[in-house]
């Protein structure tokens, strides 16, 4: 028995030694350095990806790091690993390590010049990497856009479920309201459609009006959220869960019965306006605004309401106003995300916004972590990527993902990265001063 525990502890020591060995050279690398590495990697893939893929025996560039190929044809696993190593791991690690001191210098200069310039530059670099990465295949582009939309959805649900601590199940309803609101706006005004009639305004104008459509969708979702927010004044926990669930079913049922927007057949033909730049800008905007919201006084009031409503009330927190604002705010962004979702898929039908979607968004929030912006991003990213990458497993995918989630819940009941505060300007700080200090 003692021998076993000794082996375990030595193994653990070895593991932590290995961890420090791997991570030590990269401690000094700032985010900018990683971005440079990623940029080199995606450029490398753009130029020599196809020939390298052919050289290692793959028919085309693996879309999602080759997981799909590896699952479909296990023979190709070594070539997939070789490809990932040569295109992603090695260039990113090498460039990040080698440019550590120059990128630290650049990050330092930028940071001391104007921090917002630095932030904008980082975001632009992020977009550039994403753009080049998704340029390789349309499938990648679709997945990337869906993940970005999922980030907004997850974060907006986290505002209600994580920061305010309610168990709200109404999110698919909010998303549906936003999706239909924005779709009716764009399809009705700018597209010749056999459900909503011919276009009233020229389509070129529509591109500029698209944000208005999205905001309209968000506002409609907020108006719907009033139906959930008002009962939340007196009810909490499970009764609110049921009210929000009833709301979700009602919205779904409503759209199934509204023949004006296609009824159960759904509404299609949304113009292709939600390209990568649009979705990316909206995601950045959403994350920025929601992050500021949860870090503001109002956001702290949300936490107070969660941790003890009576105590918060005694400490002069206006609990009603707080709950109302949080619900409407979360619903607004869910609606915006719904509008984007409808224009990415270019088709909506009421069946999409059902229990399946509820399970997915809840999984993303609780997997990533409650009360955390990073957690929401990680959750949306990992659940969506897993969902796409495990596609060849067919229905077994829905055994693997729930099992993974159960394991995460048992080991870390509040999710992977819960209860953190996200500060982008701190994240992009240089890791080392030019003088060499840390």
């Amino acid at each position, binding site marked *: 028995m003692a021998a076993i525990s000794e082996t375990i502890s030595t193994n653990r020591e070895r593991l932590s030694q290995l961890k420090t060995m791997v991570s030590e050279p990269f401690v000094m690398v700032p985010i900018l350095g990683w971005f440079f590495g990623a940029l080199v990697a995606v450029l490398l893939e753009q130029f020599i990806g196809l020939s390298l893929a052919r050289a290692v025996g793959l028919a085309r560039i693996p879309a999602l790091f080759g997981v799909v190929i590896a699952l479909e044809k296990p023979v190709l696993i070594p070539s997939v690993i070789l490809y990932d190593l040569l295109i992603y791991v090695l260039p990113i690690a090498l460039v990040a390590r080698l440019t550590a001191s120059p990128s630290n210098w650049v990050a330092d200069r930028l940071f001391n010049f104007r921090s917002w310039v630095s932030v904008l530059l980082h975001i632009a670099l992020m977009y550039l990497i994403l753009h080049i990465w998704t340029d390789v295949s349309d499938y990648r582009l679709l997945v990337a856009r869906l993940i970005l939309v999922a980030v907004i959805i997850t974060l907006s649900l986290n505002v209600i*479920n994580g920061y305010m*601590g309610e*168990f709200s199940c109404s999110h698919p309803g909010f998303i549906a309201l936003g999706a239909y609101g924005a779709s009716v706006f764009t399809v009705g005004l700018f597209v010749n459609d056999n459900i909503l009639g011919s276009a009233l305004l020229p389509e070129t104008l529509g591109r500029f009006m698209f944000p208005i459509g999205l905001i309209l969708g968000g506002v409609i979702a907020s108006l719907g959220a009033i*139906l959930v927010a008002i*009962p939340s004044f*007196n*009810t*909490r*926990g*499970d*009764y609110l869960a*049921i*009210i929000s*669930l*009833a*709301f979700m*079913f*009602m919205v*779904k*049922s*409503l759209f*199934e*019965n509204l023949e004006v927007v296609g009824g*159960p057949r759904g509404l299609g033909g949304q113009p292709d306006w939600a390209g990568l730049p649009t979705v990316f800008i909206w995601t950045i905007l959403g994350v920025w605004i929601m992050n500021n919201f949860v870090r503001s006084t109002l956001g702290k009031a949300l936490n107070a309401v*969660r*941790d*003890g*409503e009576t105590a918060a009330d005694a400490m002069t927190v206006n609990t009603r106003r707080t709950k109302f604002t949080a619900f409407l705010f979360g619903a607004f962004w869910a609606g915006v995300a719904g509008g984007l979702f409808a224009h990415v898929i270019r088709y909506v039908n009421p069946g999409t916004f059902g*229990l399946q979607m509820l*399970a997915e968004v*809840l*999984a993303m929030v*609780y997997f990533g972590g*409650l009360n955390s912006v990073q957690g929401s991003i990680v959750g949306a990213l990992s659940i969506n990527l897993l969902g796409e990458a495990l596609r060849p497993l067919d*229905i*077994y995918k*829905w*055994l693997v993902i*729930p*099992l993974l*989630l*159960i394991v995460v*819940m*048992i080991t870390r*009941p*509040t999710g992977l990265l819960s209860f953190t505060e996200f500060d982008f300007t701190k994240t992009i700080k240089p890791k080392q001063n030019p003088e060499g200090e840390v």
Partner: protein
Amino acid sequence: MEFFLQMVVNALQLGSFYALIALGYSMVYGVLLLFNFAHGDVFMVGAYIGFFIATALLALFAFTSLVLPGWLVLVLTILAAMFVTSFVGITIERIGYRPLRNAPRASAAITGLMIGIILETGNLALLGAERFAFPSLIETATYQIGGVLITNKKIMIVLVALLLMLALHQFVQRTKWGMAMRATAYDFVVVPLMGVPLNNIAALTFALGAGLAAAAGVLFSLAYPVLDPYMGITFGWKAFVAAILGGRGSILGAAIAGFMLGFIEIFVAAFFPSTLRDLIAYSIILVILVFRPHGLFGEAYTAQLRL
């Protein structure tokens, strides 16, 4: 009038299913303050287990050329399915709920949801997408009483459901285990200190709920003899709504609310287009909950957070 009575008969049948499933939700909630979100899928599993048991029994009787009346086979099937499915309930408690008893409540809700998905997909993966037809164990006989058509199956479903509810009531009120369950529901922090084994009580609660869901599953397949891996989802969520409507942990409330939900759905579908059924049914529930936030029979309790 005949039409009305006919609707009442249909509503009683539908309400029996809702009530039986809602009891499982309500009991678990009463004891642990957690909802077993996999419960709808336990209903589905119960129906499948009932299917296999019924098929096996029929095959056995055909092999041994033993002739048993159909109703006896049905009773045996229900009892055996309840017994086997109760172990599914115990397993769910052991895997998904016991490790999370002190975690935020939402986490347990997520594990419950995920176990539900695993049960659905596992079923689909094991048995394929083929739909099974439940063997008809008893001949359908139709009686006409004053213009109202009543089948013997409907009578049987409602009677068995009421009998099971009565049995549960007796168990909870009269036995020592039932007393332990009630005590735990009263306070599950202090009562275990008095020597009541919380883990066993929780497992028992899950087992009882799963058994009732299995009975509902077999009875449901008697009325609608097509089995489908996803049949538990809508039923489960609606029964969950009924459990909430009945009030926190109230067994009587869950039973009454189950029948009420059946009545609401049937009558809405009778007078409005059937596509509006869910919309109107949920609107009614929403209104009830706004005026009685703790459900019909639930006690008002101060919001106590365990997050």
